[in-house]
């Protein structure tokens, strides 16, 4: 499993792993979608939006990318299903594709208020990258 929920009293803490940094951002996007919408059936994608973010370091870039994704989910009512991302030094850009939010299908999760710096860590491991991040509930 590329992401798992860890113990946290008030919020949702996630551990996310991936073989490279671009994949890590994609998996972190899936982790955010899982918190927002719970388990839901995958459907053919009907929406594609551009997404980009910058950051002074990889950890900050991950926070800013997820903040941007959270913004898009709220104003475009987007349920993200897949990502096509290119991460460079201090910047990520690409697209996120998915479907429009449907209360009957996607109400299994919880609102995320923001992406927190609390407990934030991003490490290179033998297998690639590991991100620990808290979604403020």
């Amino acid at each position: 499993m590329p992401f798992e929920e860890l113990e946290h009293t008030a919020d949702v803490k996630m551990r996310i792993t991936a073989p490279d940094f671009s994949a890590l951002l994609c998996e972190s996007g899936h982790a955010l979608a899982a918190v927002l919408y719970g388990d839901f059936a995958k459907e053919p994608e009907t929406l594609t939006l551009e997404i980009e973010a910058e950051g002074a370091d990889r950890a900050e870039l991950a926070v800013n990318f997820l903040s941007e994704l959270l913004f898009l989910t709220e104003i475009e009512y987007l349920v993200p299903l897949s990502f096509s991302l290119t991460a460079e030094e201090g910047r990520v850009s690409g697209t996120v594709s998915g479907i429009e939010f449907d209360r009957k299908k996607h109400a299994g999760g919880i609102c995320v208020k923001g992406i927190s710096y609390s407990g934030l860590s991003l490490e290179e491991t033998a297998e690639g990258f590991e991100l620990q991040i808290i979604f403020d509930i």
Partner: protein
Amino acid sequence: MHEKIQRINETEWEIPKGFVPGMRVSGRFFLSDTLAEGIEDGALTQLANVACLPGILNNSYGMPDIHWGYGFPIGGVAAFDETEGIISPGGVGFDINCGVRMITTPLTEADLTDKQGLIEELFEAVPTGVGAKSPIRLSQNDLTLMLEEGARHAVELGYGCEADVGRCEENGAMPGADVSAVSKKARQRGVPQMGTLGSGNHFLELQTAEEVLDEETAKTFGVKEGQLCVMIHCGSRGLGHQVCTDHLKVLEEAVKKYGIDLPDRQLACAPLDSPEGKAYFGGMAASANYAWANRQVITHIVREIFVKRFEVDYEEMPLIYDVAHNVAKWEEHEAGGVRRKVCVHRKGATRAFGPGRAEIPQEFRAVGQPVIIPGSMGTSSYLLAGTDGAMEKTFGSTCHGAGRVKSRSSAKKSLTGDAVAAELLMDGIYVRASNPAAIAEEAPDVYKPSSEVVKTVSDAGISRIAVRLRPLGVIKG
């Protein structure tokens, strides 16, 4: 309890300077013996870290519902000097002016012949949970006016009555709101979410005023034993969350620019008189005003349903009070033996001004400010009054709720939403939520007992209990 913590008396504890390097003042927190058993080391460290911030006055304070938060602990209070001090989003939270309000009705529990039907109607009418869309069409101009004028503009649009405005902390609109400090992104999130509840610990609850514990205060507040009441808990929604996110980036840079030595990155801040500090204050105040308008719109929806179902008059459902429990505000207090203007941060803490303060509505001034403390879905909520003790000990502050003790993930592993809902129904509490997991995550077992938390603030003299309210039905996001 950590060995370096010193006990002052039955309810007060001190974190001495030196607990973490760089503490400018001591930490002070309020816990009974029962609550002390569950205190997290992380929350105490956060309380000590706050004590390191420039310009902090008297002490860094923790209320009895203290737990680990972002930057400040939840239940954290700190006041900062006007010239030497800082302002920090970590002392306010992502949900700016998350708060709670309470209205009374002329009904009693006996009038609830179809409680389930009422809760279901409220659930359909008040948008809740992820993806909730505003029940009103808000123009950009009206959004701007809500950011500036808060609850008053909602009332001007027809969502409430004039008396509501005076029954909100700050009269429902903080001075100093700066619309230019609210980004386009924040506005984009704010327009479709006006009048929505959100999720997590936010709720709308039917309650009965089961026990009046201070007759004079309850009478002054206008609450009678047996009266049916409605409590609403929510905040500034995506707009406030975006304002926090936007300004955090700026304040991260401000820390470097002003050479502020921080023990924790989450305490990113700027001097109160700096451009960055003023901009955050302006955006935060505008978000707080949005939150007051949000709770006002939801209140209107609730009243309309009651008017239709029970044939009561709109005016027979007065707002008792509306308190903010995530905010930073300019207030006058005694500090260092001098009465001065200070910036009080309350992060999961409620203003609890004692009798006589000009900020309290005239009709309540003799008994102190109404303080609304929600319990969990299955436990009592309380109406309290602010005290002189709070003015002396905590910059006029008290707790904000029960306080979590169990994580969401462990709650979901050990409980199912359906089982929790069935158990609550056995106690006469009908719960409606967007999904079963939302009920499991907010089960009564995951919170400290609200009775113990309010007993502690009462014993500590920082609030006085007036009324206990029993839950009858609740909607959750």
